[in-house]
């Protein structure tokens, strides 16, 4: 690495301003894949509804994972569902983020002890960016989770991309899986 590189590695004006513009775009337009699973899904709907209004932040739902940027895992993930979640996550296009909403998807929640059919935390199958606590979280709490995610996005850099645990795998034929 040359001296010049070293000098401008962190503070290259062009890269930095481009970076901030791109980050701004990414964080301002977080379209979510509605992954309503259980109780939290109702609160997620309430957050999207008039009283709290996701749209103020530019957050709108997309029903196809291809066009979504962030997946809100809202509710209990069961063993039967785990593989589907993994698959839907793989179908999302990069850059993609995951918000785990509520105790159940954080760590199995109320069902962590005897819940034989409950996955103990969605982070066992997909990487999670923000954990929102609550059972179910208030709409404000979910919004705060989004603000946290925006904060995280605005700190991302082009030079060192975010580490993701999983490589983006081969695309699936169908968005909804067939047994």
């Amino acid at each position, binding site marked *: 690495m040359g001296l010049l590189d070293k000098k401008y590695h962190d503070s290259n004006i062009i890269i930095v301003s481009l970076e901030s513009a791109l980050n701004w775009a990414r964080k301002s337009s977080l379209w979510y894949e509605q992954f309503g699973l259980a109780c939290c899904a109702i609160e997620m709907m309430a957050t999207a509804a*008039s009283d709290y*209004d996701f749209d103020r932040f530019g957050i709108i739902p*997309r029903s*196809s994972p*291809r066009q979504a940027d962030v997946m809100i895992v809202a509710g209990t993930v069961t063993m039967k569902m785990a593989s589907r979640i993994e698959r839907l996550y793989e179908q999302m296009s990069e850059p993609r983020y995951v918000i785990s909403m509520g105790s159940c998807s954080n760590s199995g929640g109320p069902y962590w002890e005897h819940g034989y059919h409950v996955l103990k935390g969605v982070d066992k199958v997909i990487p999670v960016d923000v954990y929102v606590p609550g059972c179910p979280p208030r709409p404000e709490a979910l919004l705060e989770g989004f603000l946290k995610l925006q904060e995280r996005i605005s700190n991302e850099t082009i030079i060192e991309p975010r580490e993701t645990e999983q490589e983006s795998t081969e695309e699936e*034929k169908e968005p909804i899986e067939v047994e």
Partner: protein
Amino acid sequence: MALLIFATLPLLLIVGYALFAIWLERKVSAHIQDRLGPMRVGGWHGWAQTIADMLKLIQKEDIIPTNASRFLFKSAPFVLFAASYAAFSVIPFSSAYIGSSINIGVFYLLAVTSLLTLSVIMGAWASNNKWSLLGGMRTAAQMVSYEVPTIMSVLSVLVVAGSLNLMTISEMQTGNDILGFLPNWLIFQNPFLIVAFIIFFISIVAESHRVPFDLPESESELVAGFQTEYSGMRWGIFMLAEYADMLLLSLLGAVLFFGGWASPFGSYLSGPVWGFIWFMLKGLLFVFVMMWMRWTLPRYRVDQLMEICWTILIPVSFINFVLIALWEMTF
């Protein structure tokens, strides 16, 4: 060089308009639903929201499904956008600005817009996805069917106007002569043209697949219809084209029925610049009504959609055509 500027101007206009229309749609829907809509991005009422969306879509990974037909999949959005862009070339934006004042303008426009159907089917089939295919099939059936009442109502206008050139049609609608105060718009010239306009409006709602005829992408049934597999900017182009299409058809309606760039106050507030403003206002009014309808109504089922077209709109438009011709002969 001048030609290039002349050609890119509508492109900028269309993209700018589409960004604005998407923002407007979100605001209108939000306020209809007692919400606020985009508020934070860019400051004042989230004006930069759609710009951020586009910038983000450019950054997104472009996924092409493994089993997709790659060439068709890749080219479908561009065909769609090219078709609606090309169609704008015969639209008379004002008395001084038109891409090409050809004398088969209406015919050209209808021909080019039928490419839209083709591109949708291309995208749907190439995706190799069942939902896409179902959406594509619906789109094809719907667009082909509604082409008939659209053309019938356009034909009725042409009978009155007596020209295929959109510039000529616009020019003949200037002035305020009907009953002494009404502008010379075609819709006031012949009472049956009101019926024709209603049929035209219903058909363009269906052609730009908006609620209550938004079956191709009906979220609750087909996930996202023919766009299910598209991601990133390719999908963004679909989105842009959809809004451009909406504007195109609205502007066509404005030219054919509401005097194009003609001012509603006769020679007052007319001229090329005012003409452009009046024209866009008329177009945007239709766009707004379409949005208003979208956020009010549920959607029809696919067979009901066809039934409306073939059992009501087409017969009525034929009868209406004959009546218009009769009226023209008598007066």
